[in-house]
């Protein structure tokens, strides 16, 4: 097992290196030009741009820039944000912490709901409840996130407050305005977690449904029933256990994607996470932040990819052999 993990870790290093080239070219060549956004208010735009280009080393060839950047990056010098002069590493660290909390709770809630809904639907396919859940999943996948987020703020924060006549909303639409404590923490995270979960549950529950449906059609399930195991044991012990493998892979992959993918949720709920950092930096042409941002989120996705493979190996030992 250890050997397997080690081999996978080593194999992901060239992937990350290649990805860094791709990301560098993407941001430098096709992303916003830092010199342009820096000189928006300058009277002599062309002179200003040229100066900025020289200062940022943008006039060198791309390979030169790449080698210089990666040299610093690997040594831990991630540079400073052009806009705020804050150290990039620090900004990313703070944002990452913000995002992880949202992602963690969102995934936790969604896993429970998705497994419950998916398994139930698979137990009673084409039932009324199954149809309802299918409709729900379609709605969840077709819903514009920004709109749904604003709706939750409107109804669950503002309208609910009016309805109850309280002086402050039950659920906050912005991060923690009052103070610490688990209750405040829950009040601040409920809405963003809800918005995030609706999408995740929509996708995952469908996945779990088909995976469990496949599993329940297997011969060993019939054998288990034939030898007189209780239905509950057959379904939840054998069926569920074996249907989880594929779902775990998908969950791990999606989880990894969330660290760079909560762009809208964070924007709507004014949370200073990775998503907000990306949009801010992109709008202001802060490529100093964008490239490390992409590398960090890419590395996280690779790590979760790896985790998915390892978990799959644990859940289904047959995989490890090949």
């Amino acid at each position, binding site marked *: 097992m250890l050997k397997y993990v080690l081999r996978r870790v080593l194999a992901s290093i060239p992937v990350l290196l290649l990805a860094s080239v791709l990301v560098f070219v993407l941001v430098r060549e096709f992303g916003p030009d830092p010199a342009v956004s820096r000189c928006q208010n300058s009277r002599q735009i062309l002179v200003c741009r040229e100066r900025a280009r020289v200062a940022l080393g943008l006039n060198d060839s791309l390979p030169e820039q790449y080698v210089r950047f990666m040299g610093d990056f690997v040594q831990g010098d991630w540079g400073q944000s052009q806009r705020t002069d804050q150290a990039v590493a620090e900004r990313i660290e703070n944002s990452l912490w913000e995002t992880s909390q949202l992602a963690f709770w969102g995934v936790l809630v969604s896993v429970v709901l998705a497994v419950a809904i998916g398994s139930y639907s698979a137990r009673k396919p084409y039932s009324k409840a199954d149809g309802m859940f299918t409709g729900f999943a379609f709605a969840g996948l077709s819903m514009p996130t920004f709109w749904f987020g604003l709706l939750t703020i409107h109804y669950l924060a503002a309208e609910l407050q009016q309805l109850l006549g309280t002086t402050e909303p039950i659920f906050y639409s912005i991060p923690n305005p009052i103070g610490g404590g688990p209750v405040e923490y829950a009040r601040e995270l409920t809405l963003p977690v809800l918005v995030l979960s609706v999408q995740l549950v929509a996708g995952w529950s469908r996945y779990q449904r088909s995976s469990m449906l496949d599993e329940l059609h297997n011969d060993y399930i019939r054998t288990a029933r034939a030898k007189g195991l209780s239905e509950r044991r057959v379904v939840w012990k054998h069926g569920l256990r074996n249907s989880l493998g594929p779902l775990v892979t998908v969950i791990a992959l999606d989880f990894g994607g969330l660290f760079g993918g909560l762009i809208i949720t964070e924007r709507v709920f004014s949370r200073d996470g990775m998503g907000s950092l990306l949009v801010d930096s*992109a709008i202001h042409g802060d490529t100093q932040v964008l490239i490390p941002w992409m590398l960090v989120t890419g590395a996280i996705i690779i790590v979760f990819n790896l985790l998915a493979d390892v978990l799959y190996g644990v859940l289904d030992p047959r995989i490890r052999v090949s």
Partner: protein
Amino acid sequence: MSDERDARQRIRESGTAGAAAVGSGVLLDEGVETAAALARGAPIRSQTRLILRRFVAHRVAVAALIVLMLITALAIFINVVSPYESNPIPLTPEILGDARHGPTGDHLFGTDRLGRDMFTRVFVGLQKSLQIGLGVAVVSVLLGVAVGALAGYYRGWIDTILMRITDLVLVVPALAVLVILAANPEPSFFGLFDFPPATEVPGMIIVISVLGWMPMARIVRGEFLSLREKEFVDAARAAGATGPRIIVRHLLPNTVGPIIVFGTLEVGLAILLEATLSFLGLGIQLPQISLGNLVAEAEGTVGTDLAYLIIFPGLTLFLVVLCVNFIGDGLRDAIDPRSVR
């Protein structure tokens, strides 16, 4: 040449299990049915007719298609249907006096803070959404099919490069790439030629298509990899058909199903992505209307009586994407009966 066509038609029409690339299971039953019809001398049901019949049986998808057609028609003819302008200039005192009206019979979606009719504005915005959705679907499908077909049929270096690139793309968050691309006000291809920024419809189509074609290429490649080993391809090759001919006349017709399904779903995805980018302020800019920037413009009204300014544009967007997804689902079931829902 006539032999090939004959063979293909026979395979298609008889639907003998295993011979046709498309489907087993349900198709087999229908194949038998068709054979029986043939024996009776009844008119032959073509594959298209069978698919159509299965699609019509999918009630939700048909309803979605009707709703979507109505909405599309309304968007196309909104200038004729609506007595109001989407961007009245100048804003006369009468218009301004009409501001902040909730939904009424005159203004179905109400009026905004400047008295402009939201119904008109939403459907003008929807015009852009639909243009972009269709544009992205067409570009992604054409590009994806071309690359996927070459990679799947010829294998070799095209295949290697394609698979490596798509592997790498899985490592970066897709929306992040779109945000970075859309944030460039003066995009160019390595300084060789410029293309329009994402603040315009064509630029937005390019940006969203950049990642959109890759799943299509992968799908087509996968189909081709299995199809190219089939007997009817061997037969065509033995009859002297060239590579391009085999691709266009033999393989592509057998891949039409997945392509149509992907194209349909891509329309919905592209509409959502455009609205999202415009909401972030990176896409279509006011005074040009998009459903995304309408919501962004009204974001401050959340929690107030004016929140209908958010609700209606979003609801329209939601409804359109939902319809597209239902249609895509219906098509998938109709074209590939093996995929049990």
